[in-house]
């Protein structure tokens, strides 16, 4: 009984949240349109949380994802403002993410700084660079091409079901699939889990720990940049702080997911449940006219409850 509660507590909580909103909002909650809305609303957080899972598998952290998201958005927007085509802006934004991520990896794996400290430092650095290159201003309006903001407004029409699946949703699902495959079905992924399980043992067993960590941080940076570009497209603008809220939510989502696995290690599909819990609360509580401050309290309480339940009987 306790074993089941521990393992499935978070999933049951998720089910309870869905049923609760369904019962309270019978007309609007359980509709295809609302779920497509939710999927689009969480897509940016999802991409960042999925790729955050990659470093958290090794027991590491990346606190810089939020400012990296801002920086990549700013980079792309600045290039647009100078007349470069959309593709160039997107590639440059992603490249900034890879470089920034690899720099995190360099600090953590080669220099040997604790991830918490290293990425706290780069969080501040990347945010400073974003302010510097943008002069602290928001880039919007005519500087942002329609083709770019259009990405977030387009979707795949499915006439048979009379729905349009937002492009951002498709993008997030694509990233989910890639990360899932990488972590669960490649040697690379298994080795990351080995590092997370026991760093020394993995190293002694011949796992190229340093290189793997470097690559893993690079991928997290890439994901952060992609999330930042999606965000910039959605708000049709870029400012040097717009991604900062995503970091804590991404870590919260991974933590919520971690409570669902037997060993307490991050699984990307479980991260998805974590992301959905956060997104559902936003969406449902808004529709129920609940004060937005209450949502903050609830999210914190749910994370604590989930972690508490999953550690039942551990002592």
């Amino acid at each position: 009984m306790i074993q089941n509660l521990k393992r499935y507590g978070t999933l049951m909580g998720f089910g309870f949240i869905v049923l609760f909103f369904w019962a309270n909002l019978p007309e609007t909650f359980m509709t295809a349109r609302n779920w497509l809305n939710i999927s689009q609303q969480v897509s940016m957080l999802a991409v960042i949380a999925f790729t955050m899972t990659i470093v958290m598998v090794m027991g590491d952290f990346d606190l810089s994802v939020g400012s990296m998201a801002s920086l990549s958005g700013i980079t792309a927007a600045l290039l647009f403002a100078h007349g470069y085509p959309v593709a160039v802006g997107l590639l440059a934004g992603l490249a900034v993410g890879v470089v920034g991520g690899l720099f995190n990896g360099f600090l953590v794996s080669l220099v040997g700084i604790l991830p918490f400290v290293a990425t706290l430092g780069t969080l501040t650095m990347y945010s400073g660079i974003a302010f510097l290159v943008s002069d602290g201003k928001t880039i919007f309006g005519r500087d942002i091409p329609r083709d770019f903001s259009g990405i977030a407004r387009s979707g795949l029409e499915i006439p048979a079901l009379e729905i349009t699946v937002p492009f951002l949703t498709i993008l997030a699902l694509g990233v989910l699939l890639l990360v899932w495959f990488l972590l669960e079905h490649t040697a690379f992924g298994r080795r990351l889990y080995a590092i997370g399980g026991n760093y020394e043992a993995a190293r002694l067993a011949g796992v190229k720990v340093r290189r793997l960590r470097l690559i893993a941080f690079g991928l997290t940076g890439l994901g952060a940049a992609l999330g930042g570009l999606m965000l910039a497209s959605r708000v049709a603008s870029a400012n040097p702080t717009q991604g900062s809220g995503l970091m804590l939510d991404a870590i919260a989502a991974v933590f919520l997911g971690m409570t669902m696995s037997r060993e307490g290690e991050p699984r990307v599909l479980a991260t998805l449940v974590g992301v959905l819990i956060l997104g559902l609360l936003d969406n449902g509580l808004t529709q129920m006219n609940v004060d937005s401050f209450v949502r903050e309290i609830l999210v914190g309480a749910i994370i604590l409850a989930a972690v508490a339940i999953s550690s039942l009987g551990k002592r």
Partner: protein
Amino acid sequence: MKLATKLAGLLAGAMLATGLAGAAMAQSKVVVITPYLAQPGTQFYVEGFSAAAQSNGWDLNVIDTAGDVAAVISRLEDAVNQNVDAIVINVDPAQVEAGLEVARDAGIPVVGMDSGTSPYLATNVTSNGYAMAVETSVYVADRIGGTGNVVMFVFDAFPPVQIRGVIADAVFGNYPDIAVLDRVTPDVSDGGIADSRAKMEAILAANPEPGSIAAVWAAWDQPALGALQAIEDAGRDNEGIVIVGIDANPQARDAIAAGGNFEASVAQDFVGIGNKTAEMVARLLAGETVKENVVYVPTMLITAANAAQ
């Protein structure tokens, strides 16, 4: 007996009226979405709006996204999905167009509460920047009797402030005996006070004769405060130099109330903007088409007489 019948009739009438109004309006769901609820100005807007919403009997939901502009889009989508009757936003509409488009497709009117104009908004309620500059520049011209040298602090790179400078140029230009001594654009990266003070110190040094500077007109309060500090520190606060600002922020109100050289500023009526926004929403809910894409709420000149209010 007659009185009693009358009273009963009145009472019944009143009940009927409120009942009818209640029936017509009670279902009206109105959502206010803003990332800026933590800022004092926004709190006053919402206060004014909430009061009006309550007397209209609306089902009001105020959503704060804590600085997150992207979340405003999400909440717009939620509100549309929830099928609300009207939405009010207090955020730059250009940044939330993705959500405004969803509302427009659903036929739900969106009103801006000091948010900027946009084809997606039924209307935007705000203060008139031109009118604010009229108040202070005419105040200066009157106080110095239409004669003397004026130092202007402007900021043409920021459109809402640029329009203030244009008006002051026109007013001062219309007085043959008023000369604009300098038109300064301060560096605002430090908040605007410190650099304005340095610029003003230089101007004071260049014009040492008492009476050579009649007034300082600032397009917002920070340069006015900087100029005040420079004038006081140079010991020239008894020359009767008149300083005016715009916005009437708390620091400016303090300085004005103290009765020194800083004599006037202009305050936006934040609560009034909230009230007026509710009025526009009520008109839209009643099925009226609103022609004006901007609605201006009068501002108020703040002097020592009312600075403490």
